[in-house]
Every structure is written in C-alpha cells, then in structure tokens.
C-alpha cells in the first residue's frame, strides 16, 4: 500500500508542471483576456473530443491514418533493415547504394508530398508510399551503422566454427546491428507521424490531418484542438511504447 502511495506521490510530483500548465490554460481561456475561439478552455475541448468519439468520426479517420502510417513504416523497416545490412555485408552493394543514400538522406522528406500526390492521387496509396520513402533511409542508415560495427573477431570465430554465410548474417551480424537499427526505427517512427499529418493536411480526404484542416476552415476550433491534441498524444504514446519494446528487445545486452 505504502509503495503504491509513493508511486502516486512521485508521479504527481514529477508531472505537476504539466498539471500547472493545463490549469494555466484553463484559467487563461476562461479569463476573457484572450478570444475563446483562439484558445478554447480545456474542458470545452474534452467535451468536443467526446462528441467526436461519439459520432465515430475520430475513430474512422484515426483508423485510416494509423493504417497508412503502419503500412508505410512496416515496409520501410523490412526493406530498409535488409538494405542497410547488405550494405555493410558486401562492398559492391555499399559502393553502389551508398552514394545514393548519401545523396537522398538530406532531402527534406516533406518535399515528397506533392510528388506522391502527383503519382498516386489523394488516397491511401500516396500516403503509404510517402511514409515508406521518408522512413526508408533512417532505418537503412541505422542498420548499416549497426551491422558495420559487428565485432570482427566474433565474425571470424563464427566462420571458424563452421557457420555458413547465412548463419553468420542471422546469428552474428543481425544481433549486433540491433541497437542502432532500433534507434533508426525510432527516428522513422517519429518521422512517420510528421509525414502522415502534414500530407493529410495538404492533400487528403480522410485521416487526422484532413479532420484538423477541415474543422479549422469550418471554424470549429474546439474540435480542431481536440484532434490536434489526440494526434500529439498518440505520437507521444507510440514513442513511449516503442521505447519500452526497445528496452525489452535489448535486455540481453546489459
């Protein structure tokens, strides 16, 4: 009992600043100093959020957003991870692919939004391809840096003990690439949210970003704030969940 109380008290102490900010928001919005449209009180926003959940709009749009982000990111993880490991594995692949990665890595990924819309229209496919292209290189680079750092002596001893090339790849190179690969995926996860929301804001007929843009131009600001805060929370929650997963996967390292 005491320990639960302690946890609650510590959590409260730790997150008190956020509570203070929320209270300041509520007080400022209700004080009449600012336009209530520009800064709706948090309680009103919660009401609008419940409304959006109730009529199912937030859920259907959210599902289509999460489908796009998940599909694009998933393909990027599989292909990017494989590409990065093969770049570290074979010099010809590195010499051929490396310069292309170097060339495209600094490209501000948001510039791909109109190109994907041009090729694939306004639907799901253009967002999935956009997120795939945007997330590919951070994953590739993470896998490459990790696999390149694989301990040479481990590789030699695995070979010496008669492991085939494929076994070495699977049992030695992949595990030693894991930490950096997982960091690359974390960067990609954050990027996928950015690309998703911004592409939906600019060209879409469904999704969180579309809702934000639509509610904003209709002037329903409390609902717009509700969707914005939902997206922000989901991005935060995804990162926290991923970090917990990352720690679990890397338990063997400690």
């Amino acid at each position, binding site marked *: 009992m005491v320990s639960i109380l302690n946890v609650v008290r510590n959590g409260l102490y*730790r*997150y008190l*600043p*956020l509570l203070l*900010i929320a209270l300041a928001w509520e007080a400022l919005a209700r004080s009449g100093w600012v336009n209530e449209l*520009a800064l709706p009180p948090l309680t009103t926003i919660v009401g609008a959020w419940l409304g959006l959940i109730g009529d199912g709009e937030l859920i259907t749009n959210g599902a289509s957003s999460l489908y796009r982000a998940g599909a694009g990111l998933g393909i990027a993880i599989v292909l990017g991870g494989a590409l990065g490991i093969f770049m570290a594995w074979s*010099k010809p692949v590195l*010499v*051929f*692919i*490396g*310069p*292309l*990665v*170097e*060339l*495209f890595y*600094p*490209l*501000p*990924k*948001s*510039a*791909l*939004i*109109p*190109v994907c*819309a*041009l*090729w694939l229209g306004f639907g799901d496919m253009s967002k999935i391809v956009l997120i795939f292209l945007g997330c590919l290189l951070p994953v590739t*680079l993470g896998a*490459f*840096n990790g696999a390149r750092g694989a301990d040479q002596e481990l590789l030699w001893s695995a070979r010496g003990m008669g492991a085939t090339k494929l076994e070495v790849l699977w049992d030695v190179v992949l595990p030693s690439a894991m930490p950096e690969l997982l960091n690359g995926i974390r960067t990609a996860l*954050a990027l996928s*949210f*950015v690309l*998703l*929301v*911004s592409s939906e*804001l*600019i060209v879409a007929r469904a999704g*969180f*970003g579309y809702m*934000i*843009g639509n509610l*904003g131009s209709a002037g329903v*600001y409390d609902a*717009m*704030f509700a969707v*914005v805060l939902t*997206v*922000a*929370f989901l*991005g*935060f929650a*995804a*990162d*926290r969940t991923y970090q917990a997963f990352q720690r679990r996967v890397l338990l063997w390292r400690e």
Partner: protein
Amino acid sequence: MARVEAARTRAAAASPLFTAEFAWRAARWSSIILLIVVWELYARSGEVTTFMLPPLSMVCERIWEDAMSGDLLANLWDTVYRALAGFAIAAVPGVLLGILITRLAPVRWFFDPVISVGFPMPKIAFIPIIVLWFGFYDVSKITIVVFDAIFPIITATVAGTRGVDRHLVWSARNLGASERELLREIVLPAALPQILTGLQVALPIALIVTIIAEMTTASSGLGGEMLHASRFVDSMGVFAALVEIAIVGLLLIKVMAMIRARLLHWHQEARQAKTV
C-alpha cells in the same frame, strides 16, 4: 605523428592498392550516373507520360528558366530565411535552457516532464493552431520551426553539460575559477560536441518544417512553389522544386558539418576517419 602519416600516404601511393582504391572511388559515382541516365531514358521512352515523370534535362531547363526570371532566387531566399531564422531563434534559448536545466533544480523540475512529453509529439499537427494565432505570414512559419527545432537542441545540451567530467570542474573551481569562467572555459567547450550534434539534428528538421508550413499555407518559398505547381498540374514545376529543395538540403547539411569540423578541430574526433 605527421611524419608517420606522410610516410603512410607515400607508401599507399606507390603500392598497387592505390589503383584499386581509385577504381572503388570511381565506382562510387556509377550509381548516381546510372540514376541520371535511367531517369532521362525512361522518361523519354514513352513508357510513362512526361506528366508523370518529366525527363531530367527538361527539369533542368525549367530550373534554369526559374533562375533567369528571378523566381528561384526569391523563393530560395524565403525558404532559407524562414528555416535559418527559426533555427537561430531555437538555438540560443535552446542551449541556454539546456544549461539552466543542468544547473538549477527548479528549472529541471519544471521543464523535465514538459520536454519528455513534448519531444516525441508530432508538433507539426499544431500548424493550424499557430496559423490561427499568428496569421499566414512569416511569424507563424518561424514560430512552428522554433517549436519543432528547439527540442533536440535542449536535450543535446542537457546531455552534454551533464556529462562534463567532474574532475575538470573541481580542478577549475579549486584554481579559483568564477562561475562564469567555469561555464565559458570548461562546461561549454566540453559540451560543445553534443550541442553541435543537437544543432545538426535540428537543422534538417527546421527545413522540413519550413517546407510543410509553406505548403499548408500555400505561400511563397520553395515549398509553396511546389504546391502551386501541383495544384496547376504542372509536374515540371513539381520536379524542378524537388531538385531545388534537395540541393538546398544537401548544402545546408554540408555547411553544418564544415562548421562542426572547424569548431572542433581541437577535439579528438577531428582525427578519426570520416564516415557516411
């Protein structure tokens, strides 16, 4: 050391390895050249319409036209100005706040949860709110850039200043350094590599966000130009803007890496081999 290096270079130049190295280096260009050739030939082959993929030569012609008419320079200036202004406005308070978080417990208490919640949020979703508050012009774009770029700078500064070797701090104190001297002579130089890493993360973010902000508000700048082109189904304009934005991104990152090498020429990392 220098003499050993020189001898090694001479030996390398004389050995047959040199020619192999040279061949690998030449091979590094093969994929880029292949990409250019395939783009041009595929676009002209008739397999795709020039609307879907205009040939690179025509895209270059379009960039040249934009450059001659002055549009390119105007848009380039708008985008780079917004990105760098936001980056600079994020950098100074970001570093200051990072130092304060390390040094002062109350500041740490207040900002620690704010940053750990704010950093992983997709702050780009706040664009419509920022536009609602600050209008459609530069102020709102620069604000969202600052909002997005400041988090990596703060966290890198906190990590850097927190990791400063205690013994250095103690000996400087013992030799009579004041707090200000301590900061300038010990803490900042020791934390500089990580602070620069934070800035190197923040700069591409600033550019990405600037371009998104220009697209969502359909304003001037390279991002706005690109959106206009796609609204008017002018695919040549879209690809021209894509190439222009890619070049700006590449140049900004290279310049930042040069600044880092320059500022850290005293640091041991300057002696390590360069990687990707």
